């Protein structure tokens, strides 16, 4: 009898919910709507779904199969498949570690905003007053209250990556809280994770649904949704559209981190993961589309509000300059009046000509934002304009938290599971990992922390994942052998995989991954010096700045450190086998001599 029987999920439903909770993350909310907007609205769904069928589902299926068959974390699983390629598992763990370091800072921001929502006036709705009590603080006036709250009060950001101040204590406290919660969710392994995912996987949908209803009843929301869904088919001819669709599917499903292998290693041997793989992938894509409908309703609302504010400002300006009675110009005839006044009082009009006539709804709608900027600046701005904004704010940031924590659970499990396979399960292993990530991650709460965060976000996981999954699919198809893999699946499921899956694993997916890989490298080289958006305090906006030398070196280190695990481990195993081989030969020789 096994002393330490591998823990299992209480039910297949827990496993599915864990995968959904992991895959559905912040990227569905803040990356997909941006891509949709950039690449022709409704038309983007075509390359998106094609990539899902061709690349997403087959690779997802493959990772689940490996985990369930090997019943080990990523390092153990890959070592079992091919001893020389155990480095793939190690690379996965290293990449997961990088992600764990920086991802929780986003949850810390969500907590910060959530806690600040319990005030009568949301702090990002109005600019704080300066010391003289004559006007709002300058930085806030030049930017906007939401930007000021994010960059100054939340991050206290410095002007470049070289400058560093101290740790922002509020941030550090929220960061500590997120790690304590993460620890609480993984302290008992699958027993605790399995219960938590019931909540983290389902509640975001409740919030999204509520926001859908709220979004559609907002003034001007329909403008945004119409803008998004009008397909601009000419974008389909652009190769970048297809590349972005493939990349989005790839990263959205969370392939290559080892989390899927870790999760499925806790499955029963005969669990029907084929159906689950298809279900989870479809749910993930469906959520992306659902979230972007909500996002575009909010965009439409925000754009309409900005447009109407612009019209109002122009109206007041016209009234004041030409001393007309208040009710002569209203919102509908501002443009007519501009023309009239330009014709009759040309001179006077020229003085104010710069400030008039630039209110454009299309332009407001076309400002697309992605990443933390969308979640923490654009959305919070929209929320301040809704009635009962505290309630909407709380709901929204709780949703962001659940999405973020759900993804974190997957990545922490991806680190802990392989480590647990190696040594006896320690009650404190999870705690040690969390403590380690907490201490290192405190660096992201410093004043230049956001710039380091951007480095990790852009370079920590992107290139390495492409490399890892490429090696994975080639290993399974050619080194391990597709026939052996087929037999394993038949052993688990009771039937062989369809010819469709086999073609994808052997030919199409590796090809696609190579194309993505090459594109990524070409982009990186052609892009010149990597740049980042630095916040300029005086101007009140972000400025494109180049990374200093140590920044570029660090980026290179990040990229190389995870990728190099594969060849280094292969080399190490090769050397050890040769030593063993030599020792064996010596032993045999001795035996032969002595016998």
């Amino acid at each position: 009898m096994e002393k330490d029987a591998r823990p299992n999920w209480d039910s297949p439903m827990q496993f599915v919910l864990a995968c959904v909770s992991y895959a559905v993350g912040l990227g569905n909310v803040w990356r997909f709507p941006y891509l949709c907007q950039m690449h022709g609205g409704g038309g983007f769904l075509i390359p998106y779904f094609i990539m899902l069928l061709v690349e997403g589902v087959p690779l997802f299926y493959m990772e689940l199969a490996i985990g369930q068959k090997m019943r080990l974390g990523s390092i153990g699983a890959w070592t079992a498949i091919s001893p020389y390629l155990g480095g793939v598992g190690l690379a996965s763990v290293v990449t997961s570690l990088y992600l764990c370091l920086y991802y929780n800072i986003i949850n810390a921001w969500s907590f910060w905003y959530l806690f600040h929502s319990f005030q009568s006036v949301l702090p990002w709705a109005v600019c704080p007053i300066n010391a003289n009590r004559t006007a709002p603080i300058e930085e806030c006036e030049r930017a906007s209250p939401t930007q000021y709250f994010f960059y100054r009060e939340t991050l206290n950001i410095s002007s470049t990556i070289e400058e560093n101040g101290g740790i922002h204590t509020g941030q550090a406290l929220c960061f500590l809280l997120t790690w304590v919660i993460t620890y609480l969710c993984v302290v008992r392994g699958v027993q605790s994770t399995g219960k938590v995912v019931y909540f983290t996987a389902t509640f975001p949908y409740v919030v999204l649904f509520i926001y859908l209803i709220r979004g559609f009843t907002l003034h001007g929301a329909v403008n945004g949704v119409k803008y998004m869904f009008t397909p601009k088919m000419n974008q389909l001819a652009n190769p970048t559209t297809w590349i972005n669709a493939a990349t989005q599917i790839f990263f959205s499903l969370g392939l290559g981190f080892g989390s899927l292998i870790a999760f499925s290693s806790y499955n029963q041997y005969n669990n029907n993961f084929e159906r689950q793989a298809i279900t989870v992938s479809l749910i993930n894509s469906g959520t992306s589309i659902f979230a972007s409908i909500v996002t575009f309703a909010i965009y439409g609302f925000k754009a309409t509000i900005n447009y109407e504010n612009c019209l109002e400002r122009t109206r007041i300006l016209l009234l004041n300059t030409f001393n007309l009675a208040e009710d002569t110009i209203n919102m509908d005839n501002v443009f007519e009046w501009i023309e009239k006044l330009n014709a009759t009082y040309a001179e006077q009009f020229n003085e104010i000509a710069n400030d008039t006539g630039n209110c454009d709804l299309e332009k407001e709608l076309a400002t697309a934002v992605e990443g933390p900027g969308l979640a923490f600046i654009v959305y919070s701005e929209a929320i301040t304009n809704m009635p009962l904004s505290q309630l909407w704010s709380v709901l929204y940031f709780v949703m962001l938290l659940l999405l973020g924590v759900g993804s974190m659970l997957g990545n922490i499990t991806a680190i802990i599971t392989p480590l647990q396979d190696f040594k006896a399960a320690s009650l404190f292993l999870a705690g040690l990992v969390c403590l380690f990530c907490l201490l290192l991650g405190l660096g992201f709460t410093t004043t230049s922390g956001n710039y380091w965060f951007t480095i990790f976000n852009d370079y920590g996981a992107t290139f390495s994942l492409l490399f890892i999954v490429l090696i994975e699919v080639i290993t399974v198809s050619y080194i391990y052998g597709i026939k052996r893999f087929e037999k394993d699946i038949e052993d688990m499921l009771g039937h062989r995989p369809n010819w469709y899956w086999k073609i994808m694993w052997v030919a199409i997916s590796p090809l696609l991954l190579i194309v993505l890989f090459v594109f990524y490298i070409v982009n990186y080289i052609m892009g010149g010096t990597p740049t980042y958006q630095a916040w300029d305090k005086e101007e009140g906006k972000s400025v494109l700045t180049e990374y200093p030398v140590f920044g570029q070196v660090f980026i290179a280190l990040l990229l190389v450190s995870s990728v190099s695990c594969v060849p280094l481990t292969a080399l190490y195993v090769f050397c050890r086998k040769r030593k063993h081989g030599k020792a064996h030969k010596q032993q045999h020789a001795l035996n032969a001599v002595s016998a």
Partner: protein
Amino acid sequence: MLDKILFLLCLASALADERCMPDTPHGFQVRLSIKTALGDEAYVWNENEMFLFRASLAFAMRNHMNGQQFEVSNIIVCNETMRVSFWFIVTSPLDTSQLIDQENVEAAIRQSRNRINSAFLLTDKTLEFVDILPTLATLYTHPTPPWLIVFGVVMGAVSAGIIIMLVSSVVQKKRKTNRKPQDEDDDEETRVKTVENGDAHDGIHNMSFSEDERFTKM
């Protein structure tokens, strides 16, 4: 009708005082946005409202410059427009040929801004004194920031959860180790029993019924 009244007023005030003019260095421009502020309940701007304005300004001047008895006649208004904007200057009550300088007028208005606003049911934004910056009200600063309170609550709850989990897992382990010595005792007893039983039934093995294949087959 309104236009005629306004025109006469302008004329009257213009005839009265040439020192009052747009961009005068001694006065300020005022702009009212009554319809924006009050919408349907907006009142019509007429000479009575203007009288109220002059009276409230005289009140502000009296408040600021103690002792001097400003009257409505000391506030001179000119250049009224349809926007409802106009310029005004203030003369000294002791000597009408002297004008009160801008700084004193500004200080007086600043001091009594609230009272002037409420006389007209308007706010700092809708009753605009051009070039006089309103003193903005600071938001109420709490002694303990509210976010810290919520943080404390959540942190306390989560820490309690962790302690409960750890304690319960330690307790479970202790229970298991307590049960194990008991289980081992039970095993020993059963083994002893079987051995005893085996001895009791260990009779002479009857070879004829055994299917021993050591003997060669015939």
